[in-house]
């Protein structure tokens, strides 16, 4: 207790130096914590933007059919073979609607007036592909006389809210607002092309907003896409894609190789984008973490300076403590205790500063209209907080180590007679 008071008193003696060193440690440990949180947060954001990119293999038919053993057609037999591949837990079929389609809308749109005509693409998927976002009581199937359920991409919604709505004076939308919105689309004719099939108009109802839905179009039940294709005179068998789920990212390469050997191609656009974004985030964060480490090293130098000076100006006091029975280790321990106080305080200040800076950064981002913007781009954990505190402590103790050893080696007889 007395030693703690003594240590605090000693720190107060050179309060300016102590404050400076504490601030340096806070800056180093805090920015380390900040950038570690930023790196983790960005990779979380990437993972949210491209869900399951590291656990899904997108199989497409080969662009060139070389007449291989299986002919490269994605029919039921091929789907069965893909599903049977080792490591594959699920095989979900996809079917693009192959004819032109468009939507002309002129009416009220969530309180504003909307008058648009757009090209529409559509893809049919199995219910399981969207299960995470579909309401539990949404069957996601065609029922005679009622509108076709369709999902839209959450990334598209982000784009709309971030870029489109503000510039066109249209209301911003949430996924909840969109659910149930019904509008007609026209099959067999678009703004730029017409098919050989009949032109028909079908009502479509938004059933979910999902990051797994196709980006620029409507994602509808598989059998709806097949029925539309048949009505337009297109082949009714086979699929345009199969999504394979694998148990773990480690199995991806083997599954991909097996898919290729079956004569199919891979569409890895999403995963490559996710990997590129993840890599960029990781590299950026690592660079800043290195910079933060450099700050920590500089802070250690400051601690060394401070305590070297302290040992010099406190020789007499250290001699008195030794005369009172302090062992050399206890004399240096007092200095290390002082350093630990600085390091602990610096680390704690740094943590608070980093958390504050992170919430400021998030608040600033929230005002930026950019699509796909996550709520936070940080992920702070207790492990990284503990690590940052430890770094602050280690920086202080490391900087004070040599001066403390010097204090232990001081000849007490001499320091006492020097006066």
């Amino acid at each position, binding site marked *: 207790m*007395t030693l703690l008071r*003594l240590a605090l008193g000693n720190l107060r003696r050179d309060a300016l130096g102590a404050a400076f060193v504490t601030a340096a440690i806070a800056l180093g440990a805090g920015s380390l914590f900040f950038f570690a949180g930023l790196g983790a947060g960005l990779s979380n954001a990437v993972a949210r933007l491209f869900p399951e990119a590291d656990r899904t293999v997108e199989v497409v038919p080969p662009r060139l059919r070389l007449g291989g053993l299986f002919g490269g057609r994605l029919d039921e037999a091929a789907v069965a073979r893909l599903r049977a591949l080792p490591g594959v837990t699920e095989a979900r079929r996809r079917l693009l609607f192959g004819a032109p389609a468009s939507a002309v809308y002129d009416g009220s749109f969530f309180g504003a007036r909307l008058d648009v005509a757009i090209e529409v693409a559509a893809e049919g998927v199995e219910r399981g592909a969207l299960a995470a976002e579909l309401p539990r009581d949404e069957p996601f199937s065609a029922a005679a006389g009622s509108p076709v359920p369709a999902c839209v991409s959450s990334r598209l919604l982000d784009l709309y809210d971030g870029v489109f709505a503000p510039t066109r004076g249209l209301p911003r939308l949430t996924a909840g607002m969109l659910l149930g919105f019904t509008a007609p689309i026209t099959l067999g004719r678009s703004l730029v092309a017409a098919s050989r099939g009949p032109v028909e108009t079908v009502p479509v109802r938004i059933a979910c907003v999902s990051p797994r839905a196709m980006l620029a179009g409507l994602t509808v039940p598989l059998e709806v896409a097949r029925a539309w294709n048949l009505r337009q005179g297109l082949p009714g068998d086979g699929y345009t894609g199969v999504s394979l789920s694998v148990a773990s990212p480690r199995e991806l390469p083997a599954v991909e190789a097996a898919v290729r050997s079956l004569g199919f191609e891979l569409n890895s656009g999403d995963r490559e984008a996710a990997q590129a974004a993840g890599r960029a985030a990781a590299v950026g964060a690592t660079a800043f973490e290195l910079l933060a480490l450099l700050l920590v090293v500089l802070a250690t130098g400051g601690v060394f300076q401070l305590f070297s000076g302290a040992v010099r100006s406190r020789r007499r006091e250290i001699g*008195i*403590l030794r*005369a*009172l*029975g*302090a*062992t050399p280790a206890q004399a240096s321990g007092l200095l290390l205790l002082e350093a630990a106080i600085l390091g602990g305080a610096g680390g704690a200040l740094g943590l608070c500063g980093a958390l504050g800076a992170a919430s400021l950064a998030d608040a600033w981002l929230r005002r930026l209209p950019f699509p796909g913007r996550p709520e936070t781009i940080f992920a702070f954990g207790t492990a990284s907080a503990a690590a940052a505190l430890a770094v602050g402590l280690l920086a202080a103790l490391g900087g004070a180590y040599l001066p403390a050893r010097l204090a232990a080696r001081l000849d007490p*007889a001499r320091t006492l007679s020097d006066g």
Partner: protein
Amino acid sequence: MSEGAAGGTGGVEARGLVRSFRRDGRELRVLDGAELSIAPGEVVALFGESGSGKSTLLSILGGLDDGFAGSVRLSGVELSGLAEPERSRLRARTVGFVFQDHNLLPRLTVSENLLLPFAFRRGERPGPEAASEALESVGIAPLARERAARLSGGERQRAAVARALVTRPRLLLCDEPTGSLDGANGRRVAELLVSLARGRGVAVLVASHDPSLWRGADRALELSGGRLRARLAGAA
């Protein structure tokens, strides 16, 4: 009193002490066969010219300096060859020091200064009442909670005496304890020191320039030429 009793039962006994320093490449032999024995309760004054080696002798006897040849028995333990941290532990248990000045840590209160020696020991953690009792005995009990820096010179030396005795040492080593005090103050501190030590059965060695202050001592020694010689008590 036999010489053996002094080093064995709580006093101090030194035989053939030699201590030399190197200065400007030459050997400076400060102690050259000094011999000394102080029994418990005995107060010995140590005189000698400036630079004769008084402080050096005190440092050796108190285990602050281990660069000597010869033998020192402190409370029955041989100091020569005793390594750290045992040397510091023995010092904490058996020796009290009073220096000329800068004895107290100015940022701590007087009471905290008194309890400081216990911060370096295992076990024993006396409370503030031990400090106020010790301050009572030197007559400055009301200053217990005062910052040491705010005390007068005489009050500081009284506090230093109280701190040196609060751990119940066997040997009290005082290096010019009145050196920075004026005549009257110095005399009062000297008298206090002698009476307290005697009452507690502590062996005392006081180095001083001023023989007039130490007429109450049992014996006086003169250090010159690296050796100790008896000096007639009171002969200033």
